[in-house]
């Protein structure tokens, strides 16, 4: 079992089953169009409130409140994955996935919210940083480090955005029984996203995410209660599962080994914190109070969403619901036990959920490009106004390129997108070391960031151990992806940590380095 099989939160290519007759197509398209129009309307309102500066465009001038910050982070993270991949895993392997995701997103990410997020918020507020690369570049006096962090992030982000478009195109095609072909569906969604993201920036994205997150939560509970009422209640549903798959109710077993569960939880949680669209949210809170309240609400919101969503998948196994052709169990359960219009609403919600992940990724992808690559390397003298324009153009270019890629959907990009969480996780430990250890050196950072990326790419993107592949005249041998049960993502993190600390101890700081930037004003020495 590899990490790539499960992707991570928000991962996702999914194709809902063609679950209804042609008469339902207008209803389903209607629901999607209504959602698109609401998103657009929110975008227009947000646009009217926006100052024409990059900080406002990317970060809503650091003014987000508790509910909006909680739900925008939540909807960004957990959208399409919660709807499809999570229930699929529970259907195939048992409901222990709830524990993995609870530990991952409820507790570990909560701690990182403070350890990485609050610290970044403090530093970002004091020095006006918009991206992770900008902060690190300044601290280590190294535009090259800034560019490296941005490039590494874009390398993993781009195929991941492409996956969302592949999913959207496939979903619309299946939803309409082919009336809307794949290319048209992917293009339609992309054009809508470009329009509202270009218009509204972070404020609009955060507001639509909030609507989205509340809608998702409501639909999951409605779906669960509906199905349970049809099958005679929670006791009956679990009894059926105990009869058909008794091993599912026993903690552990099958794929669920201790190292596997911990690898998934740790690898994905740290990856999430370094995903540009999530990491950037660490800079946007309006006040400390907002960060505090969000932290305290986090485990409960995670619980409210995951327990019903994943139990539905597990119960479906007990109820003997067959896996639909599309490979996603949730539409299968809904079709079996709820009216068509309700199933359609949930599927449309999932579509929209995918968009709410993609819009945020476009926005942060564009900001990494303009702030960390365009400005330092191409046009250092750009005015605020000009940077704002470039930022908006960047969104359109990024989305168009990934749309073109999604139409070809090359297998290599697919693999990279599918393993993106591990790729981002490799950045986390060097960043934490830099945030907390003033002795960290520039060379240590380069060694940690590049070394762990190299390790992860070699172990993940090459063929599995024992096999090999040929690339022209080259024969590429297989490399193991797990080490005594631990995923290469977690092992790579350790490699990155050792390299960052080890090389920092062996090298001296460059004169341009400014450790006081991160260690705080009362310990400042300049």
């Amino acid at each position, binding site marked *: 079992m590899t990490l790539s099989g499960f992707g991570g939160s928000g991962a996702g290519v999914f194709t809902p089953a063609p679950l209804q007759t042609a008469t339902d197509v207008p209803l389903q398209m209607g629901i999607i169009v209504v959602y698109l129009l609401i998103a657009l309307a929110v975008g227009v309102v947000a646009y009217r409130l926006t100052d024409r500066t990059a900080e406002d465009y990317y970060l809503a001038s650091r003014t987000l409140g508790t509910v909006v910050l909680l739900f925008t982070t939540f909807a960004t993270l957990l959208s399409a994955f919660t709807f499809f991949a999570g229930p699929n895993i529970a259907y195939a392997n048992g*409901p222990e996935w*709830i*524990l*993995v995701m*609870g*530990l991952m997103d*409820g*507790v*570990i990410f*909560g*701690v990182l919210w*403070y*350890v990485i997020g*609050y*610290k970044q918020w*403090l*530093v970002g507020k004091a020095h006006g940083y918009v991206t992770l690369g900008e902060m690190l570049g300044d601290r280590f006096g190294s535009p090259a480090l800034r560019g490296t962090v941005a490039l590494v992030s874009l390398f993993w982000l781009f195929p991941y955005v492409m996956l969302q478009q592949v999913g959207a195109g496939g979903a619309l095609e299946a939803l309409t029984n082919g009336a809307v072909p794949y290319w048209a569906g992917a293009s339609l969604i992309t054009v809508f996203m470009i329009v509202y993201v270009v218009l509204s920036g972070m404020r609009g994205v955060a507001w639509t995410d909030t609507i989205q997150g509340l809608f998702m939560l409501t639909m999951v509970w409605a779906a669960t209660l509906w199905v349970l009422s049809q099958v005679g*209640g*929670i*006791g009956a*549903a*679990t009894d059926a599962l*105990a009869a058909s798959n*008794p091993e599912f*109710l*026993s*903690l*552990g*077993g099958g794929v669920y080994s*201790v190292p596997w*569960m911990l690898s998934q939880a740790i690898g994905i949680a740290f990856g999430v914190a370094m995903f540009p669209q999530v990491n950037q949210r660490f800079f946007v809170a309006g006040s*400390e109070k907002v960060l*505090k*309240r969000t*932290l*305290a*609400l*986090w*485990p*409960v919101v*995670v*619980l409210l969403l995951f*327990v019903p969503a994943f*139990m539905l998948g597990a119960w479906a196994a007990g109820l003997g619901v067959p896996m639909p052709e599309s490979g996603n169990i949730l539409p299968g359960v809904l079709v079996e036990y709820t009216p068509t219009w309700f199933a359609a609403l949930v599927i449309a919600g999932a579509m929209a959920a995918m968009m709410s992940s993609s819009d945020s990724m476009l926005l942060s992808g564009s900001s990494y490009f303009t702030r960390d690559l365009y400005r330092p390397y191409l046009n250092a003298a750009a005015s605020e106004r000009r940077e704002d324009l470039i930022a908006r153009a960047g969104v359109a270019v990024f989305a168009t390129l990934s749309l073109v890629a999604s139409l070809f959907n090359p297998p290599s990009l697919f693999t990279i997108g599918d393993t993106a969480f591990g790729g981002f996780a490799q950045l986390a430990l060097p960043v934490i070391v830099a945030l*907390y250890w003033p002795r960290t050196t520039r060379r240590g950072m380069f060694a940690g960031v590049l070394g762990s990326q190299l390790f992860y790419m070699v172990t993940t993107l090459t063929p599995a151990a024992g096999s090999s592949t040929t690339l022209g005249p080259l024969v590429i041998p297989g490399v193991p992806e797990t080490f005594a049960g631990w995923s290469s993502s977690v092992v790579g993190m350790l490699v990155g940590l050792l390299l960052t600390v080890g090389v920092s101890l062996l090298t001296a700081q460059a004169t341009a380095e400014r450790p*006081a930037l991160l*260690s*705080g*004003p*009362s*310990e*400042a020495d300049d």
Partner: protein
Amino acid sequence: MPSRTESIVWGVVFVVLMAFAVPWFLWGSSNVVAGLPVWLWWHIGWMVVASLAFAVFARRGWGVWMGGWSA
């Protein structure tokens, strides 16, 4: 500025929160109570505890480990 003791105590609290989100001591157990496995009830309860712990931390411990930032 938070004391050294506070820093250590909160570090321990966070580690404990992470360590027992999955009830490892119920490994292999398949007892069902009120329609859900016991290990899932533990997890549900634990997440509520984590929420409360985070709320207390936000009130009392906020600022630990932040070095020169928590003046």
